C-alpha cells in the first residue's frame, strides 16, 4: 500500500507503538491492518471536510453575491447565517423525492452519483501538503483529468434521463462544453508538466518554491499566459458563470437538473462546489507553488536547528503551515471564481465554442511550443533567475 | 490469483462478449460498442504479456497505439453513422446495403 499520508504518519512513535501492541494482541503482523485503518480514517476526514467546504461554498456564494449587489444575504441561521447550508441540507433531505413518470429510472438515479464519484475520486491526488496527500500517484495529474471527465458523463445522463426538453438541451450543452474545454486545459497542463518533468503532484510542486518568483506562474511569459487559459477553461469545465450555459435560468429553467428534487439535486450541487474547489486546488498546485512555504519552514528543519524543537513536532508544525498555505491560495481562487460569476454576463453558445476553438486552443498550443523552446534555450531557468544572474554579472564587471 | 491465465481468461470473456454484440445487434452504434469491447480485450492481452512474460515496455506501447486507434475509429465511425442517418433516417445495418446513395 503506497500512500503518502500513511508513510508520513508511520514516522510517529505513537503509531509504531500501536502497531507493536496490535501485533502482540492479535498474533500476526498488524502493520498492513494499521495502514489500512489509518488510510480509511484519513479518507473519511478528507471526504467530510470537502463536503463541509462544498456546503460552505453555497453559503459563501450567497454572501459574496449579496455583498456585490449591496444586499445582506443569509443572516438568520446561526451567527452571520453561517449555518444556512445545514438548514438547506435538512430541507433537501426532507423534500419529496420525485422521479418523473417518463424518466429512465436507472439512468436518472445513476447520474448524480456518477457526478459525485468523479469528483470524490479526484480528491485522492489533491495535494493538501507534502505529508497530507492521500496518494502521490506517478500519473497523478493525468488520473485527475480522467476522473474529472466522469462528471461530463453524469451531466449528460442527467439531462437525457429526465425526459424533458430543457434538461436534454442543458445536458447536451454541458457535455459538449466539458469535452471542448478539456483540450486547452490539458494542453496547458502538459506545458507545465514539461517544465516540471513529471506527472505526479509531488514532482509538479517540487519544482517550485515558496516565494512568488519561484512559482511556475512567473517562470516564463508562456506559463504566465497559461495560468489564465487554464483558469478560464476550468471555469467552463465546472459549468460556472460566465460559462453556465447548461443551467442558464433565462433559457433552460435550470438545465440538466431541472427535474431533480430533494437530495438528488443536492448531490449535483455538492459535486459542482467540490469540483470548483478541486480545480482551484489544481491551479494552485500547478502555477501558484501549491503547498510550498517560504524559507523551508515546511520540513521543519529550521525550527529544529534554531529553536531546538522535537523533530516530529517541528514536522507537524511544518505540515500545518503547508496546509494553511495551500488552503489560503485555493480559497483565494475560489473567491475569484464566485466574484467572476456575479460580475460577468453569460456567453452565447456560438461565442462559447468560438472562444474555445479559435482562441484558447491555438494560444494553448503556442504556449506549449513556447515552453518547450524556453526549456531548450535557457536550460530550464526561470526569468527571475536569468535576470538575477545578468544583474550579478553586470555588478561583477564593475 | 493475478497471473497470465486469469488475465487471458478475462480478455477472452471480453472478446466473446464483443463478438456476441457485433453479430446479434442490428444497430450500427451497438455494433461499434462491440468493436470497442474487442479492441479492449486485445489491449489487455498486450499489457498482460508485458507483465508476465518479459517485462519489456513494448507491450504497453502497443496497447497505447490500440487505444489511440480505437479513439480515431470511434470518431470517424460515429461521424459516418450520423451522416448515414441524415441521408436515410435510419441506423439499421440492413439499410446500408448499397455503395451509392
Amino acid at each position, binding site marked *: 500500500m503506497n500512500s503518502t499520508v500513511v508513510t508520513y504518519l508511520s514516522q510517529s512513535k505513537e503509531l509504531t507503538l500501536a502497531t507493536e501492541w496490535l501485533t502482540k494482541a492479535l498474533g500476526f503482523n498488524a502493520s498492513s491492518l494499521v495502514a489500512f485503518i489509518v488510510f480509511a480514517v484519513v479518507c473519511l476526514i478528507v471526504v467530510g471536510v470537502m463536503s463541509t467546504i462544498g456546503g460552505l461554498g453555497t453559503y459563501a456564494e450567497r454572501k459574496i453575491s449579496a455583498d456585490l449587489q449591496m444586499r445582506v444575504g443569509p443572516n438568520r441561521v446561526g451567527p452571520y447565517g453561517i449555518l444556512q447550508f445545514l438548514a438547506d441540507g435538512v430541507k433537501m433531505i426532507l423534500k419529496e423525492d420525485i422521479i418523473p413518470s417518463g424518466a429512465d429510472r436507472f*439512468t436518472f438515479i445513476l447520474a448524480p452519483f456518477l457526478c459525485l464519484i468523479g469528483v470524490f475520486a479526484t480528491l485522492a491526488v489533491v495535494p493538501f501538503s507534502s505529508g497530507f496527500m492521500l496518494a502521490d*500517484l*506517478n*500519473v497523478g495529474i*493525468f*488520473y485527475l*483529468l*480522467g*476522473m474529472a*471527465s466522469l462528471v461530463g*458523463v453524469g451531466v449528460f445522463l442527467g439531462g*437525457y434521463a429526465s425526459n424533458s426538453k430543457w434538461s436534454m438541451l442543458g445536458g*447536451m450543452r454541458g457535455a459538449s462544453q466539458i*469535452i471542448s474545454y478539456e483540450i486547452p486545459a490539458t494542453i496547458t497542463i502538459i506545458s507545465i508538466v514539461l517544465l516540471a518533468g513529471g506527472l505526479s503532484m509531488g514532482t509538479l510542486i517540487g519544482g517550485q518554491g515558496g516565494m512568488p518568483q519561484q512559482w511556475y506562474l512567473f517562470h516564463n511569459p508562456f506559463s504566465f499566459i497559461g495560468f489564465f487559459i487554464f483558469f478560464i477553461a476550468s471555469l467552463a469545465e465546472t459549468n460556472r458563470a460566465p460559462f453556465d450555459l447548461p443551467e442558464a435560468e433565462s433559457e433552460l429553467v435550470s438545465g440538466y437538473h431541472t427535474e431533480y428534487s430533494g437530495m438528488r439535486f443536492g448531490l449535483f450541487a455538492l459535486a459542482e462546489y467540490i469540483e470548483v474547489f478541486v480545480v482551484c486546488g489544481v491551479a494552485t498546485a500547478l502555477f501558484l507553488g501549491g503547498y510550498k512555504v517560504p524559507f523551508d519552514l515546511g520540513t521543519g528543519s529550521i525550527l529544529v536547528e534554531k529553536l531546538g524543537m522535537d523533530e516530529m513536532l517541528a514536522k507537524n508544525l511544518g505540515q500545518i503551515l503547508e496546509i494553511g498555505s495551500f488552503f489560503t491560495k485555493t480559497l483565494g481562487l475560489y473567491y475569484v471564481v464566485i466574484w467572476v460569476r456575479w460580475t460577468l454576463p453569460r456567453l452565447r453558445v456560438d461565442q462559447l465554442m468560438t472562444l474555445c476553438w479559435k482562441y484558447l486552443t491555438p494560444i494553448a498550443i503556442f504556449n506549449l511550443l513556447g515552453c518547450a523552446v524556453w526549456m531548450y534555450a535557457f536550460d530550464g531557468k526561470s526569468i527571475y533567475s536569468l535576470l538575477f544572474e545578468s544583474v550579478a554579472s553586470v555588478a561583477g564587471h564593475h | *490469483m*493475478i497471473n497470465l*491465465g*486469469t488475465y*487471458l*481468461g478475462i480478455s*477472452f470473456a*471480453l472478446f466473446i*462478449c*464483443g*463478438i*456476441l454484440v457485433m*453479430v*446479434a445487434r*442490428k*444497430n450500427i*452504434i*451497438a455494433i461499434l*460498442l462491440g468493436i*470497442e*469491447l474487442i479492441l*479492449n480485450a486485445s*489491449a*489487455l492481452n498486450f*499489457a498482460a504479456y*508485458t*507483465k508476465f512474460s518479459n*517485462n519489456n515496455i*513494448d507491450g*504497453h*506501447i502497443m496497447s*497505447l*497505439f490500440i*487505444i*489511440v*486507434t*480505437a*479513439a*480515431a475509429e470511434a*470518431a*470517424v465511425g*460515429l*461521424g459516418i453513422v*450520423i*451522416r448515414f442517418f441524415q441521408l436515410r*433516417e435510419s441506423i439499421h445495418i440492413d439499410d446500408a446495403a448499397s455503395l451509392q446513395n
Partner: protein
Amino acid sequence: MFTNTLFLLSAALTIGGAFAVVYSENLMHACIFLLASFFGVAGLYACIGADFLAATQLVVYAGGVVILMLFAIMLTGGTANNFNRFGLEKIAAMGNKKTYFMAGITAVVSSLVLLKIIANVLRNQSSAALEANLPTVERIGTVLATDHILAFEISSVLLLGALIGAAVISRPRTEKND
C-alpha cells in the same frame, strides 16, 4: 492483499459490464455498462503496474469515446420505420432470437479456436513470484521518443486525419438550389 481485492473488483466490473452490454435491450444502458467495463479494464491495468495505461484508458474512454457514443445515440434516435425499402419487416434493431442464435454459433466457434490457442498457457500456470511494479511513465516516454518514433509520428498523422475526416463527414451539407 489490497491488489487482490482490487483485481477481483475490477475483474467482476469488467466481465459483468461486458455481459450487461450483451443482454441490455436499451442502447443507452448498454453504453453505461460499457463505461463500467472500461473502468474495470483500467483497474486491471493498474493491478499489473501499467499505471500510465490505466490513466490513458480513463482519459480516452471515459472522457472521449463514451461521451461520443452517447452524443451519436442522441443525434440518431427518433424514427421507427420497421419496414425496409422492399416493404419487408426488418429485424429489430437490438436483435431478436434468430440473430442471437447466429451470434451464439459464432461465439462458440471463435471461443473453440481461442481456447485451443490459450490452452497451453492455462495448463502451464507458472507460480513464480512476480517482480515489483515499477513506474512506467518515464520508460514509456523514452521508448516512444526513440525506438517507436515512427509509429508515434504516424499515429499523430492518423489522429489529425480522423479529426478532419470526422468533421468533414458529419458536417450537414446545404442543398444548392440555383
